[in-house]
């Protein structure tokens, strides 16, 4: 009796897992999600404003592929925008920052477990923005 009950439960779980994987694969096969990119500087400003609830970007550096962007506001605060599937995620850049500049490529690691390091192709602007990141207001450093 107990064995047949357990077999029934296990069967249901296996069937559920198969359905889950099949639906996930179907979404992939149907190419859902599309190809979402940051269109231009205004789009980056809008993403920063919406994601960070009022962040008013005055300066924008777009990744040449449109996958990510760095924005700065009048107070010198920087925010990093990255694509996540069909949407975007933004984070305030707070010291200490782990960054690497390789000609046009600026790689930033914000040290957050769910925010993978981002490499932006900023072309000629890379050096300028890398320099700006060294002067982020210290009050943005995480407290205690």
């Amino acid at each position, binding site marked *: 009796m107990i064995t047949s009950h357990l077999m029934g439960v296990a069967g249901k779980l296996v069937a559920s897992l198969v359905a889950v994987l099949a*639906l*996930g694969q179907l979404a992939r096969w*149907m190419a*859902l*999600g599309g190809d979402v990119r940051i269109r231009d500087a205004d789009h980056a400003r809008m993403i920063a404003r919406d994601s960070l*609830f009022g962040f008013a970007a005055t300066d924008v550096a777009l990744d040449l592929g449109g996958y990510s962007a760095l924005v700065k506001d009048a107070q010198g605060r920087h925010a990093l925008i990255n694509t*996540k*599937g*069909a949407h975007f995620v933004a984070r305030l850049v707070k010291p200490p920052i782990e960054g690497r500049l390789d000609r046009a490529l600026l790689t930033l690691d914000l040290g957050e477990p769910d925010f*993978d390091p981002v490499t932006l192709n900023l072309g000629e602007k890379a050096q300028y923005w890398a320099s700006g990141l060294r002067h982020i207001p210290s009050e943005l450093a995480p407290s205690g």
Partner: protein
Amino acid sequence: MDKLPNPVDFAVPLFIVLIVFEMIWAKRRAPEKYEPQDTLNSLLFGFGSSVAGLLFGGMLIGAFAAVDRMHLVAIPRAWWSWALLFVLDDLAYYVFHRLAHRVRWFWASHVNHHSSQHYNLSTALRQTWTGVFALSFVYRLPLVMLGFQPEMVFFVGGLNLIYQFWIHTEAIGRMPRWFEAVMNTPSHHRVHHAVNPRYLDRNYAGVFIIWDKMFGSFTPEVDAEPIRYGIVKQLGNFNLAWGVFHEWIGIVRDLIRAPFGSKLGYLFGPPGWSHDGSRETSDTIRARWVE
């Protein structure tokens, strides 16, 4: 006493068919409404929630049985008791759901349901793995204490969950006015899943939207303002384990770091509360927006 089936078991095949239909709709009208990895994650949340239910189900049954022994009156199974239970269960759900958004300990579990930036039928199945730690079963115990049989309460809870499935969609605009006035609908629930300051922490209803209207938490959807879904600090990637446990991990970190007198605030305060005011809650975000 007759054992009642779990109605959700019967609804799952329908859930799958409707998700496929909605995917076809998205493919034709708006491919960005679905995203493969997001969909897979949402469904894995649902699968994991089922597994958690099996692991901790015995504990729940034990709690319900213990309370059942102290019930105030014996309520029979009759048409009126089913109807009464359905309404009272939905009221209890409203209270629990409101608390789940306003108390971080409860939010740590419920955040899983809100952590997708998409809003489609797969989001409905994005259920928590850690509901038992957040005591999300407790709100139904008063119904058992009152005298409703635990089997009836479980059954009606299943019906409530099934109702809430179809409202997780952007494929339906508005329902007829009389329906929108009384019932929870896709439009009302889109507001609930939104992070636009206007919509934060609104529309907690399960089945009947009247609770929000009665208790002052109702906000209608405004067509002119596109909805952004998810949570105030969106998850940065699709890491499933982080998605499941991130708020619990955040609580533990805050409890370790916080000054002694502030620790309880990080447990029972609203999500986003901090002892030094360095973070934002829904209330502070909305207050800034109103200015």
